């Protein structure tokens, strides 16, 4: 009952990172939302177009990220360079995660629930996706998008709350659901994205395998189901005093549901036409 938040046990120890800057960056605490940008992508200068205007000491920062920096650089410069390297990596990351391979990498993280779960009770712990509210750095911190309630939330932990939202961009979660429409969360029921299999347990392994096969079977289905009327299934909270609804809130909720029904009607007509 007195369970304390023990979410900061792992990561960050000096011994367990390999020598590359990117793997050090990814393994350091607070950077759990980032995925690995493939080196080929970074080395293709076309992908970095315009970033030299965003990052000072661009060339050296890029060398640091790709582990090509001269070793004889002074320590104080290295500290300043690290800030620039993080910024550069973040901005490359924002471009990378909207590519086909980047989306696939982020999808794995989504399935592992690396971005946390929706705090909204009626979203049934729906896994979240990171999103920026601006594509320009130093404006807004990263937020989390829930595909079920389609709203954005602040990360629980302050070390995630201080990450720049521009490192993920405004488009990423929406592009992900456009590319993988079968992963659009349903509005009811609990869905677990296929969990990563654990090697030590044969039973869960088998079960996970089945789940994986199911989800793979789902992924091969060409045309995803219609989403025109999914909103009708969405559950909502109704405030009550001694079991009675409150006048003003009930009125607002009726109005909101009339707006919803109007949209459903609109979408169903469009669907019948096509």
């Amino acid at each position: 009952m007195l369970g304390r938040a023990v979410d900061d046990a792992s990561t960050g120890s000096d011994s367990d990172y390999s020598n590359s800057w990117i793997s050090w960056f990814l393994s350091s605490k607070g950077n759990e939302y980032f995925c690995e940008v493939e080196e080929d992508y970074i080395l293709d200068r076309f992908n970095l177009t315009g970033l030299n205007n965003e990052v000072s000491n661009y060339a050296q920062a890029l060398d640091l990220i790709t582990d090509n920096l001269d070793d004889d650089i002074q320590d104080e410069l290295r500290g300043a360079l690290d800030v620039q390297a993080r910024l550069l990596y973040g901005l490359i990351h924002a471009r990378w995660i909207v590519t086909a391979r980047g989306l696939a990498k982020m999808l794995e993280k989504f399935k592992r629930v690396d971005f946390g779960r929706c705090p909204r009770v009626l979203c049934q712990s729906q896994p979240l996706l990171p999103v920026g509210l601006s594509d320009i750095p130093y404006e807004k911190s990263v937020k989390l998008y829930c595909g079920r309630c389609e709203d954005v939330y602040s990360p629980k932990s302050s070390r995630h709350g201080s990450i720049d939202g521009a490192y993920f961009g405004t488009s990423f979660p929406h592009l992900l659901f456009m590319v993988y429409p079968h992963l659009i969360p349903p509005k009811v029921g609990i869905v677990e994205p296929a969990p990563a299999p654990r090697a030590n347990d044969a039973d869960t392994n088998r079960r996970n395998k089945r789940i994986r096969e199911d989800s793979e079977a789902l992924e091969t289905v060409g045309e995803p189901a219609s989403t025109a009327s999914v909103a009708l299934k969405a559950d909502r909270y109704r405030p009550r005093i001694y079991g009675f609804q409150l006048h003003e809130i009930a009125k607002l909720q009726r109005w909101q549901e009339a707006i919803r029904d109007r949209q459903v009607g609109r979408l169903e007509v469009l669907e019948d036409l096509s």
Partner: protein
Amino acid sequence: MKWRKASSTPTSTLTWISWFCSLPGHEYFCEVSEDFIEDDFNLTGLNIMVPFWKEAMEMVLDVEPDEDTSKIPDVSIVEASAELLYGLVHQRYILTRAGLQSMVDKYESAAFGVCPRVYCVGCNVVPCGRSDLPGIDTVKLYCPNCNDIYGPPSSRFQGVDGAFFGTTFAHLFFQSYRELAPAPYWKPSSSAESSLSAGRSPDSVHSSSRRSGFVNPNPHGGQKRPEGHVYEPRVYGFKVSERAKSGPRMQWLRLRPQSPLELDTVDWRGRWIDEEEYDGIDEDEEEGDRQMEYFDPVRVFYKTFRSRK
């Protein structure tokens, strides 16, 4: 039955109630006054829900136990009963004037935290149960701005029963303190401000709403200026169309009308009053990009299709 304090020992100044409320995870509880607990009327019906009632009462009120109570096998059983007893009394106490007052003090110091939803801009939340019966669900947090409930951010609240706050408290609280309840309608005050609304700090929002004297024409309604911005998904700066499979379907959940009169355009059954037979294609007035609709081939096709019928 009379619950008399056995000669209060000067060494233990901390009462069981203060100790209980100071435990980690118990930050949402307020201290129930002993007078309230000592009045048997307030406890009506609780004795059948709490095992070891007498011993639990003794523990909560710091009464020295009788000598013949050694038949209880384990003191931890009584502790569980005392917690259940206190929780259920707490559910009733926070609905009284005194209880609401001590909870409003906690609310105003943000003791219950803020709404995790970005566009609620740090609105303070209150604890809320999903059931009035214990053992069903843990405590949740109710946000008056989005009228929704959220899981507490820390796992230490996962051991706190929602029934200890009850289903009614959160709403009675905002009925009692109308100035803390956001109104059900919202008009972006200026185009510049609305686009920035997520970035404003909560402090500046509060001070500006007080300064400009926001008044809801419904005197029984919420009197606080709400945070009405609704998230709009965009890809490369363009809104995701509702016609896409992945298009927005849930904006209604957070939407507020611009004026309180619009709320009256829907009747008690949830139907639009002025639309005899809604044909499903009319744009609602909230849509900003109306002029685009004239270039919509599907719509034009649909209109001709309807007129031929």
